[in-house]
């Protein structure tokens, strides 16, 4: 593969080139970077997956590629050319289908053609053919609410195919479906794609489901967060049809898990600096205490070490639910991650085996290592009444977290309440030290 931007022969040409793309929101100190300096190439005939935890900017990247939003800096080239606004050769299949509920199946498919000025008879014929292709014949006059989730997404696919896109972008198209419908739809899409029955030249799919990525993609681009960036690219050389039970398949899933979950960073790096101080302030992960307890107990039962892939499957947790809990465990020093495995620390083992009260004490002892919580705690301690208005903390946190500040403060309060360090008085809108209440 070359990096040349001139039009080479169509077969080997890069369909899409993303160079140094960064997207930030807001301005002047309060900005938030969704993706930073991302490079990506998609060749003709490729099926590429963007994979990562929630908040890694994969959906943002997809929207930049489709031209729905502009990049703050960097370039997106389609067939070597810059395209202003929405890319007319690309289309998106959405997670929540984004069908118009007041239009019938047929009208939903034809509306895209109407926008392109296609005449009525052609619109009608194309729609019928596509509805037939996705296996919905007989449902032309049905409204989306009369269909099941899987059938709705089929309409989504038919609508996308109506405009004959060269680049088909899929934004977690199966994640809102039940397990069986998702599996069936995946199979049908692969059949169309591999059988070259689609006019499409490449597919880019965003997902947080690792198995799905390994099942479908030719190449997996793993993304990380804070800010969103490309961690690594993993080619998938497995032959179609791929079997989940296959050892090679499982090995690859394990490898991708390791790449996504990463490894526990050093303590200073993991915890970051206090709000308002220079340096990166680590966000509190959106993890529930109950989920943490569950994870610790499970790890303990497994003998203190478990494969992340198995752990997720056993606990029936999606990647997006598992990773925040794991992150919380790492911040507390209860577990660390190496080579795609979660490992319980002695402290974590003690927590898993402790009573409720002891657990609270264990968390109270460790949670003050988290800079945001420590900073709130110290601020409260230095106050004469040991009560400070919530708005004070919010204002300061905004400098580090922007719009995310209220959620961060709520998370801090939840953890501190559990540890009985400080709490929030809803009547006065103040935070107060628990000890001061006695």
């Amino acid at each position: 593969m070359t990096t040349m931007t001139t039009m080479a022969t169509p077969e080997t040409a890069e369909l899409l080139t993303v160079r140094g793309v960064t997207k930030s929101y807001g301005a002047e100190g309060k900005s938030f970077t969704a993706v930073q300096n991302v490079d990506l190439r998609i060749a003709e005939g490729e099926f590429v997956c963007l994979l990562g935890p929630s908040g890694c900017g994969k959906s943002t990247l997809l929207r930049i590629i489709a031209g729905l939003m502009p990049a703050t800096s960097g370039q997106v080239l389609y067939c070597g050319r810059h395209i202003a606004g929405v890319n007319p050769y690309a289309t998106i299949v959405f997670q929540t289908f984004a069908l118009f509920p007041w239009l019938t199946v047929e009208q939903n498919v034809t509306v895209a053609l109407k926008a392109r000025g296609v005449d009525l008879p052609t619109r009608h014929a194309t729609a019928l053919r596509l509805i037939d292709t996705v296996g919905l014949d007989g449902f032309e006059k049905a409204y989306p609410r009369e269909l099941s989730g899987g059938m709705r997404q089929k309409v989504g696919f038919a609508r996308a195919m109506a405009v004959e896109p060269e680049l088909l972008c899929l934004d977690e198209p199966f994640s809102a479906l039940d397990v069986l419908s998702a599996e069936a739809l995946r199979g049908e899409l692969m059949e169309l794609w591999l059988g070259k029955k689609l006019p499409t030249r490449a597919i880019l799919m965003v997902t947080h489901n690792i198995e799905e990525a390994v099942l479908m993609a030719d190449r997996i681009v793993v993304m990380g967060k804070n800010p969103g960036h490309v961690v690594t690219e993993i080619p998938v050389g497995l032959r179609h049809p791929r079997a989940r039970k296959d050892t090679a398949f499982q090995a690859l899933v394990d490898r991708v898990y390791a790449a996504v979950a990463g490894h526990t960073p050093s303590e200073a790096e993991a915890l970051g600096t206090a709000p308002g101080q220079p340096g990166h302030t680590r966000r509190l992960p959106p993890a529930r205490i109950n989920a943490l307890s569950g994870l610790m107990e499970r790890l303990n039962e497994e003998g203190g070490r478990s494969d992340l892939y198995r752990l997720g499957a056993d606990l029936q947790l999606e990647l997006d639910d598992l990773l925040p809990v794991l992150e919380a465990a790492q911040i507390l020093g209860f577990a660390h991650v190496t080579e795609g495995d979660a490992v319980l620390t002695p402290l974590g083992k003690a927590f898993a085996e402790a009573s409720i009260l002891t657990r609270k004490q264990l968390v109270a002892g460790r949670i003050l290592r988290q800079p945001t919580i420590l900073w709130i705690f110290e601020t409260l301690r230095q106050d004469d009444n040991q009560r400070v208005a919530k708005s004070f903390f919010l204002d300061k946190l905004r400098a580090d977290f922007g719009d995310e500040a209220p959620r961060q403060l709520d998370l801090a309060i939840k953890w501190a309440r559990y540890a009985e360090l400080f709490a929030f008085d809803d009547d006065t809108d103040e935070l107060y030290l628990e000890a001061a209440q006695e």
Partner: protein
Amino acid sequence: MPRPFRFGPAAISRPSFSAADLVIVAGLGSVLALAIRLAWRAPAVVAGPRISLSWSALPWYALLSTSRMAAAYGLSLLFSLAYGYFAARSAGARRVLMPLLDILQSVPILSFLPVVLLGLSAVLPQGLATELAAIILIFTSQAWNMTYSFYQSVTTVPQEMREAAAIFRLSPWLRFRVLDLPFAALGLIWNSMMSWAGGWFFLMAAEIFRVGSRDFRLAGLGAYLQTAADANDLKAVTAGVLTLIVTIVLLDQILWRPVLAWADKFKVEMVSSDAPPPRSWFFDVLNRSHLIGWLRHRFWSPFTERLDRRANLPAESSGETGAGVWRRLGLGLAAALGVIAAMALLFGVYRAVVTLMEMPAAGWPAIGTGVLATFGRVVASLVLALLWTVPVGVAIGTNRRLAGVLQPVVQVVASIPATALFPVLVLALLRVPGGLNLAAVILMLAGTQWYLLFNVIAGTAAIPQDLRDSADLLRLSRWQRWRTLTLPALFPFLVTGAITAGGGAWNASIVAEYVTFGGETHSTVGIGSLIARATAASDYRLLLAATLAMILAVVGLNRTWWRWLYHQAEVRFKLE
């Protein structure tokens, strides 16, 4: 998300007083002052129409009244679509338009009636002026909540639907037709129905408006009822009321119910809910009719197809330079209009200040007393309304059988505009000592209690079953149950109901506190009677001062007391 439907203003949660408010209130004052300057030339004697009490005239009067409503509603709909769309699309416009809307919807509309009537009759022929004034009045009572609903819908279109519209490159027209308008349709229709019902109140008020030797009445059902009451003709009164009810019920059956049944497809929830879809016999008849089907196939479909094709201009203009020119031209035009508006505003404010300065100092205490007296009546009517609507509403909301019996009755009774019955009320109460005072409070009550009742019913129905079950399991006494469950759960609904009801009560004061009846004028102390008396006596300074005082009083109350209560309701008593 299915949300319990609340009958009330939606824009209340905005921040309290701001600089924009000051500009807007100044703007209102300036518009008033300019209109009053016109009013100086209004004829001193205005002859009203001759109202026939013959029953055969009733269908004609019903048609006249309905036409006024239809004209005003059409105007309101166009206004809401344009204003709401513009505010939603342009961030710059939004900063001005939304605070303006917020003030406009809390202004007591009837207080404008005298000024508008006088101003228009100074420049237009008599018949046209009163017709136009009535339509403007109804428009101002209908437009704001519809506009707000449309604006809110357009700004809350789900992100993925917006993105789908963008990725499939729908033109602005197609996007409006396929996405924005359908998404907003249900809210717009519900608000239209509320506006329509509210419109009758103002139409009746406009049709019976008569001060001193100026008779601004309009031929219509309102004037018929008033004339009938005036002539002590109870048969005619009954016939008039019946005609009014039949008109309202008929419109509901052949207009609003079918529209509602048709609009069911615009529901956004993808899950089919338990509640049965709204049904309408008339809609079913239309749907089954071959003629309608033929018309749709032969004319409507080709028409929309051609319309879409004509209006289907691409989203991105092909000629960038051309677009640039138009853009600059538009900006220039907007700037020019802005400068003209600002100058008019300044001149108006200047006129307002001059007019107010010229008012004799003795006028101010009278205005203060008037505001307080009317305030007292508003409070009294609200308290009375609360006293009966809360127990009755809770009873209807919890008891299915009772609801089945009472709901239709309540709906019909509530649909009769209170102002239509006011002349009858006056006829009955004028001989009682303090009768007009009582009649005024009853009119306010009659105009406002329904908002409260419907909100109480909706609030009661929204109390989750598990909370009721817990209250049963805890064996709470009747009083404890009221205190710990029912009243807190109702609180947000009571507040929204009371805000709307309070606004309505202030409005009613204009027609309630000053009555010309049987050739005699009766009035009581109040800001409404002050405005009416100033209109009769051509005391334009007093008219301006009193109207402004009333607007300030109502907007002030909304921005302080009601906002505070609303905030409490949102923060502390929200059930979810």
